[in-house]
């Protein structure tokens, strides 16, 4: 039998920093994008691809925030309109820009207005729920809530 307690002798700070680095990977850049006038930030490593001018194929009987699917080289990606999910008054997005997420559990993307910039913030400018860019705080986009909403709404029995 092995006693595990004696093996955890690493200084706590070192370990945390190491884990943080390992989790975040080498690419520490962020993407700032906009939906209408609102800007969001997202870690670059979470992005699979950005697609423009794609045709959306409507899927019937889905919640209104699911605009349909787009064809990414033969793979369907669910297109989500975040404004409709949040019941915003002005929810139509004229621009055809789609942000595809890199995920193991699902294929989906969001309909956005514009790609603003890719940039690498200083360590001090990164917070739990936002980043600082040109003296402004940009909220981090929560991708997981989209997956939760979809699984909740598409699994519903009518």
């Amino acid at each position, binding site marked *: 039998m092995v006693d595990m307690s004696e093996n955890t002798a690493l200084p706590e700070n070192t370990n945390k920093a190491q884990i943080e680095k390992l989790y975040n990977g080498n690419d520490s850049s962020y993407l700032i994008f906009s939906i209408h006038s609102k800007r969001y930030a997202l870690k670059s490593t979470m992005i699979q691809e950005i697609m423009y001018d794609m045709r959306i*194929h409507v899927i*019937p009987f889905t919640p209104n925030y699911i605009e349909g*699917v787009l064809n990414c080289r033969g793979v369907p990606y669910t297109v989500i309109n975040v404004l409709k999910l949040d019941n915003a008054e002005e929810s139509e997005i004229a621009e055809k820009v789609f942000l595809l997420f890199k995920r193991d559990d699902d294929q989906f993307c969001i309909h956005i207005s514009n790609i603003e910039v890719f940039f690498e913030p200083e360590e001090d400018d990164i917070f739990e729920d936002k980043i600082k860019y040109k003296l402004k705080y940009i909220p981090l986009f929560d991708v997981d809530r989209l997956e939760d909403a979809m699984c909740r709404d598409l699994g519903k029995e009518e």
Partner: protein
Amino acid sequence: MNDDVILDNPVQCYLDETRSLISYIRKSPEEYYSILRTLSMTKDNSHMMGYESVYKLYKALEDVYKALCDDKLSFSKNLKTLINLVLDKLVFFCEMIDSGSTEDMENENIKPYLLYCDKAVAGEIFEPKHLLKLTKSIPKTKKRRKAPAKKIDKEQKDEILKISSLKIARNITIHEEMIARSYIINNQVSMLKAAIADNDMRGIKEACKLLANDTQNLQNSLRMSHENLVNLMQDDTFLINHQDHHGFFVTANDSKYMIPSEYIYDVICESPLNYEVVQNQKVTNYVIESETGIKEDAEIEQIPVYSLSSLFPDQKAKSLNVLDTILIVDYQTQRIGIIVDSVQKFVSVIKKNMPPAFAKFKAVSGLVFDEKYDMIPILNIPEIMRRFRSLRGYDVKKFEAITKKHINKILIVDDSSTTRQIEHTILMANNFNVDEAGDGIDAIEKMKHKQFDLILCDDDMPRMDGKIFLDNVRRMENYKNVPVVVMADTPLEKADAFVSKADFSREKLINTIKRMLKDE
């Protein structure tokens, strides 16, 4: 007896140790240094106990943790999944050791695990999902042993089917490329030998560079091929994913859908005027021909019909079809008719699964591509039938009110049955609802019971001629403003329009009627 007791103790001790390590790694997978230390000990113990498969798995895990400690590797979500999968396999081995089935351990295929750990250590991109599939598809040894002979036969058949797949053909191409590359490497080795013999440093450097390059390429191809083969062997869904799906591309509400042929019993056309309403439900009289082929023996089945567009929230108004296209579908004991805007064609296509979030979504069972590379949803007919059944009468009426264009009702008043028949045919073909009357008295009787939108009448008729008839019509409150078109030799004073019988043409008649009804 004593020996057994002595032997049992180290086994139990080893099992306790390895289980404790597994649970520790699961609990704190990021404690690299402490895990690494224990891993090395347990790995060596596995070797000493003769559990070579377990030893190899621990060795692979040790390499991963060494790389993590040396900062050569990042602890990612994929890596965590991989580690957990390796731990699952180790738990499985522990169960085998516990139950005394150690002989079967060496038959277990652990190569994919080792390969994926290698990939992780080399910093290559890997997808643990494939390994996940593999772990699910590996039958447990005990179950396999107990499986009946028939099942084994089926598995063997599946293997043959898989070998004939396109994926194998792709691997053969990769293998041919690798063979060619190995010949090049052989040549380069000869060149290197010659350069060494001549003490030609430049030649040695050149040959070494080329060798390193080609060996790397060969290794990459080998890895790719190996991964493909592993995926192919373990991917049970491969054949299912590549099955043909047959059905009709149909349109409804300006969108295209596929209805799988497995539910389609027949495709018929029916005039909207021929539907009947039974218990508030629109039905069509579907003729089932008898086996004898005699018309009189044919049976008529009343099938409820629903418009596919009625299920969609944004129904678009459209002009009424002369004939509706109906797909008669059945599921279990129920049969219904689905009215679609059009049936485009019968197709045989490969189905694409919906994104994972749609796993519990029943209305659409997948996607297919059409000739424009558009993604067309496949309607899940049992669910569509359920949705039709849950449509309330109110919804159906509302849908019909939105989408159904008003059909104008025309009364033909003429004493000649031939003229009435000709006019009737022309008007019917132009989507008008037509009634006939033999003279003015007959017409007024009909007008009392039904509101017509236009009257088409003759002048010279027995009992009541056109002029008196028109006077009577204008005196009727509900017919004051209803247009009257006279089709005779001479015009009538109170008529709204006149069509001369002398230079009669279909177009002139229809255009006049449409103009009067403001239906142009």
